Structures are given as C-alpha cells and as structure tokens.
C-alpha cells in the first residue's frame, strides 16, 4: 500500500470514529460553525466534531503544523476532502480566516503576527471580516479613500468600508487603508489588522434584495491601531491584497459546492416538481433539455477543476485555467437558480411564506442572494477582462 493509501485508510477510520452521525447530514445555514470569541455551538455533537477536527489542525488541513495547522501535503488534503465527502461529513468550520486571510498572513505576516493570529483561526476563536471595498468605488478597489495617518506610535484610521461580510459578528477586520495620499492609486496602500472592539469602530448592516443582511458598512472614526498590526511593508499592501484575492476567487468558484447542501439539487427538484412520464423522464421536452444542458456544463466545470488538480499534481499547471473559475462557477450557479425558479413555478415566489415549505423558501432567498456572486469578489466583467488580457493575451 502506498503512503497515500495508508493515509486514506487511517483517515477514513478516524473520521468514522470521530464524526458523529448527526454531523453527516446536510448542513443548514443556521448550523454552520463560524469562528468567534462568542461562538455558540448548535449541539454537543457539533462541538465534539469541531473540536476533534480543530485538535488535529484539520480545520486548516494544509497549513503548517507549527501554527496549529494540519501540515498535510496537497495530495493528503485532497484525500481528506474525498473521504469527508464520502462520509458526508459537515465542514467543521466556516471562516473567512481559513479561506482567505490565513493563507495571505502565512505568506506576508511576520513571525509575531503568525504566532498571534493563525492558531486562533485554526481553533475558530476569532472571526475575521474583510475591509476592502468602499462606497462608490465598485470594481475600482484601488480608488479607496479610508486613510491611516502615522501618529508615531500608532495609526489613526478614518473612513468607511462597505460589503464587510458579517462585520457585525466579527472580532477582527483586515483592511486596506491609504497610508500615502500623494502616491499613485495602487501605491500608498497598506494592509492593516484592526480589532473590532477598538473605540471608534461602528457597524451598520445593509439589507439585501434577499432580505438578509450579511453585508455591512463599517465606519472608522479616529480609530487608533497599533503599528505592529501592519502586515507586510508600509505602502505595499496591494501585494498582500493580491495574494488574498487569489484565494477569494478560488473560494467564490467553490461557493456552489459549499452552498449545495443547503439549496438542494436541480435534478432532484426537477423530479419532485415537474410532471414525469411513465418511464420517469420529464414530460416537457424543452425544460428537460435545458436542465440536461446546464447539468452537463456543471459537470464540465467539476471536470475542469479535476483537470486543474491533476495538472497541479503533475506540476504542469496551466495558469490560464484558474482565471476562468470564478466567472464560470458563478454564472452557472445563477443559471441554476433561474431554472429552479422555473421548475418550482409559483411555489418559488414566496416571501413571508405561509404557503411555501422550508425548501421552497430557501430556494427563493438563495436565488436573490446569489445575484451577488457575479458582483462580489471581482465582477464578472472584471473576470472577463482578465481572461481576455491575461489568458488570451489580447491587447489592451
């Protein structure tokens, strides 16, 4: 047996032993475990499962062991993912610190910063928020105006950030701030960590078209930030941001599978809501073809991801393919939502919802919320620009 096969066998056995039956069911949004000082576990099972994983560092399987991570190789991490999928284990931790901030801090943070923050992310003790966008800036991130003035022993921060996901629940926020107002746009920006408990920080949730308020505006009014909270060099924050954006894009493209457990499959909904003929196939030929077409393309998207994994393993990475993921993934997700609406008919229109069941209710809210996916984290238009210029080499 190869090392990897041994690892697979051991992992499978360990998961079977440590993942309670209740944690192998599709997860509902309200049962997700996020990091945070004040986190509350939805059940004893959930807590046990989380703690077992966090102890092994498997909340961040491929991070270095010295900071509490799992220390797995990329192949081992893939095996862990496969085995978890096989047993239908719930993700132990949902956390922006795991997905985006951690990898960037590991790359750009100093030793003290890594020691301070990474273990807490792995253990889910701190919930992080992102402070990039500003009102009126849209995709033009670099036009940000929030400023951090050097006051000798600290920075004094003033300004407003928007789209700070769940900032009202976050303990810390990582921000891009302008430290040199005279420099050209992308220069003069620094990457700063700010404790949300600091004086002068306030948060106001934004109501979305889905009725939810996951995004916030975060206001900084003369907030004092210690100088040791600067990540990377002064005025070089753009580099850290770019590293982080890489992870965000990968994340966005996998949103689909992340939210899958909550929003049910197009295939199953079609079988449940459409008229079937005696052989069990969908009677209406038009919608049947449109569903098949989308499912084919979604399968191709998975195959594209798989191809990239094998390229990575073989060290033959085609950099261009990564640039496609966000646009393809989010567009497919929205097409799927629209088709689901069509399949459900008037059952998908509920809002206050006495006539809709829980499933129908979630489907509708997801449809509305998911309109954000082609906007947040780099709009589709920006993605297409990138593909044209960088992947295809079109002149600009």
């Amino acid at each position, binding site marked *: 047996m190869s090392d990897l096969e041994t690892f697979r066998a051991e992992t499978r056995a360990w998961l079977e032993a440590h993942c309670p039956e209740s944690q192998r069911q599709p997860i509902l949004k309200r049962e997700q475990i996020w990091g945070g000082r004040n986190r509350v576990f939805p059940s004893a099972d959930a807590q046990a499962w989380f703690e077992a994983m966090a102890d092994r560092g498997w909340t961040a399987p491929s991070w270095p062991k010295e900071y509490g991570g799992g220390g797995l190789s990329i192949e081992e991490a893939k095996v862990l993912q496969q085995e978890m999928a096989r047993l239908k284990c719930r993700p132990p931790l949902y956390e922006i610190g795991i997905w985006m901030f951690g990898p960037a801090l590991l790359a750009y943070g100093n030793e003290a910063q890594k020691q301070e923050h990474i273990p807490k992310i792995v253990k889910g003790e701190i919930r992080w928020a992102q402070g990039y966008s500003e009102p009126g800036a849209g995709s033009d991130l670099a036009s940000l105006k929030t400023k951090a003035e050097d006051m000798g022993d600290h920075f004094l921060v003033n300004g407003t950030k928007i789209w700070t996901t769940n900032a009202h629940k976050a303990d810390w926020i990582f921000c891009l701030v302008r430290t040199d107002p005279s420099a050209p746009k992308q220069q003069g920006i620094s990457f700063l960590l700010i404790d949300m408990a600091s004086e002068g920080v306030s948060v106001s949730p934004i109501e979305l078209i889905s009725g939810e308020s996951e995004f916030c505006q975060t206001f900084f009014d003369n907030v004092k930030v210690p100088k040791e909270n600067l990540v990377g060099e002064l005025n070089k924050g753009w580099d850290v941001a770019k590293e982080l954006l890489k992870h965000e894009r990968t994340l966005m493209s996998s949103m689909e599978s992340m939210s899958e457990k909550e929003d049910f499959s197009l295939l199953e909904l079609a079988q449940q809501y459409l008229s079937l003929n005696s052989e069990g196939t969908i009677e209406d030929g038009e919608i049947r073809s449109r569903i098949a077409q989308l499912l084919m393309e979604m399968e191709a998207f998975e195959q594209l991801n798989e191809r990239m994994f094998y390229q990575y393993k073989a060290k033959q990475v085609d950099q261009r393919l990564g640039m496609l993921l966000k646009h393809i993934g989010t567009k497919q997700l929205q097409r799927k939502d629209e088709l689901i609406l069509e399949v459900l008919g008037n059952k998908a*229109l509920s809002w206050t919802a006495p*006539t809709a069941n829980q499933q129908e209710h979630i489907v509708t809210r997801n449809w509305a919320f998911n309109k954000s996916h082609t906007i947040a984290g780099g709009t589709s238009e920006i993605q297409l620009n990138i593909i044209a210029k960088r992947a295809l080499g079109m002149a600009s």
Partner: protein
Amino acid sequence: MIFNEEQSMLKDTARAFIEENAPVDNLRKLRAAPEGPAYDLELWQQLVELGIPAVALPEEYGGLGFGFMGLAAVLGETGRNLVATPLVSSVALAASLIKLVGTEEQKSRWLPALASGELTATVAVQEGRHYNPKSIETKWANGALSGSKTMVMDAQEAGLVLVIAKNASGALCVLALNSLEDVEQERYMLMDGRKFSDLHFRDLAGVEELGEGEQVASVEQALDIATIALAAEMIGGAESLLERTVYHLNEREQFDVKLATFQALQHRCAEMYCQLELARSAVLSAFTRLDQGRNIAKAASQAKALANECYQHISNEAVQMHGGMGITDELDIGLYLKRSRVCNQLFGDANFHRKRYALQIGI
C-alpha cells in the same frame, strides 16, 4: 400599433399623475404591511376619478370607449413605477370576463359599477404550481362548487370574485361570488411585495353562474386579455429598468471613466433595447388586434412569452450593471427583479406560451 391622440393624452396624464403621486416607495409601504391592503386604496380612488377603469369599456356600460389600447397606455405607466392597482385583475380580466360571458342582465348589473369604480372584481384561475387553464379541476356540479385556487390577485379588496371551473360535462364555466365569507382563504405576500390569496371551496352552494352553458372560447379570450394587460405592465417595468441602468452607467465613474463608455456594457444595453422594442411591438400588436375585434390567442402567447424573457433578462442585467448597490434593498432595482419573476408565473411562463404559440401556428 401606435397610440392615437386620445390614448397618447391618457398616457401623458397617467405618467404625470404617477410620477407625482405614486413613486416606487408606495410599494415599499404596502410591503411593510403584510396584513394591509393589496394596493393603495386612496391612490386607486384617484385613478378612478381620472376615469381609468372606464377606459376600455364600451359606452353603453358607462365606459369611455377608448379601446384596450388606452388601457395598455396606462398599464405601461403603472409598470414603470411598480404601482399596485387592480387594473389587471379587475379592469382587464374580470370586466372582460363579464362582458364576454355574462348575460345581458349580469352585464348591466356589474359593468357600470366596474366602470365607475364602485366595484372591483377579481378572477380565480390558477391551480397548482404552473398556470394552465386547460387542466382546471375546480368542479361546478349539482349546484355546488369544490376545489382550490391559488395566486388570486386582490381577492380581499374585491366585491365580486369570479371563479373559473369545469361543469359536470367537463366544459369551462364561470361562477360569481359576491362574498368570500364561506370560503376558506389564505392570504400571503409574494416576493414582489404584493398580496395574493389561495381560495378553497368545499361544496359551496348558492353560487350564481356567469352566463349560460359552455364558455371555453370566451373564458380563453378574457384570459388572453389579462395576459396582454400584464405584458403591457411588464414592458413598462423593463423600460424603466433600462433607463435607470443607462442613467447609472452615464453617472458612475470607475477607473476614471464613465461606466457607460465600456463597450461591453454598451453592447449589452443595445441588445436589451432591441429585445425591449421587439417585445413592445408584439404587445402593441396584440392590443391592436384586440381593438380590431380579431382573435388574439396567438398574439397573447407571443406577447407574454417575449415580455417574460425581456423583463427577466433586463432585470438580471440591471442588477449586475448596478454592481454592489444593485443587490441592496435600498435601490429599487431589486423590486423590479422580484416583480418580474412573479409576472412570469401569472398567466403562464415563457415555456407555456411557447408551446401554446407552437400549437397556434400548427407545429
């Protein structure tokens, strides 16, 4: 195919009145009161005073005889500002149904009251998840009405509820209820902030039948009138969205240039405009046929299918082109987005109407 002078004046009047008195915020107020009325009763009273409910009705029943094209002009304007009114449920649908199906006595009893605005009515059609008047199961037999209806518009506000059912021989017929007192009701708000009702009839007796005998063709025609009325409203909504989007792109700067200068966005807006004008042409053509007394079965399906796709596409593009703000409830864009999806389902989605159109043209 175009508005005549009277109809154009009516359109201008409606636009001016609505701009002044019915901003999109009105819908937010209605939405904030789930138990409240389905539409702003005071505003409706003002529209009544402008004579709107009488526009399309013939003069013999107290109407103004402007033709349905006049009503189309008004519906485009209510659609632009998402104004909730009983224009589709009562003026387009219920009044047409009475006119087409009712006995002379029933017409004299109800049409003048509808024209003057004293009375509003609604029609209970839909059953099940997808609109399909061919598969109605509500039964009218032995003097009793049984079955369930869903997506009934403005039911609580209506003084008269017409129910489409099948009689003992399986033919379409229409029942008229002056009250919903003995009917089990569930009222709910949909994503567009409007209120709809489910009605359940259990051997309901003492119901008056509208007209006499089989009414298949007339019922279908009344439904087609409601279908194109809704399509006219939808075109108004899509038009407003495109205008708002172009305005936004012309205002907003990014990377030091106006968003409107990006060619990819220009081409997408141009495509939307093509789609909008095609759909609008189909809707106007259907109304023209209607006023000419020609059959509109094919025209109604064409108009609704194109209006559905147009409103859906433009609302998606409008959200996307407004960027982050487009997905906030603060902007009105999301309200149009959600209204378009409800309109999609009312009187049949695009798939339903494509199939119906195919049947009409013999394929």
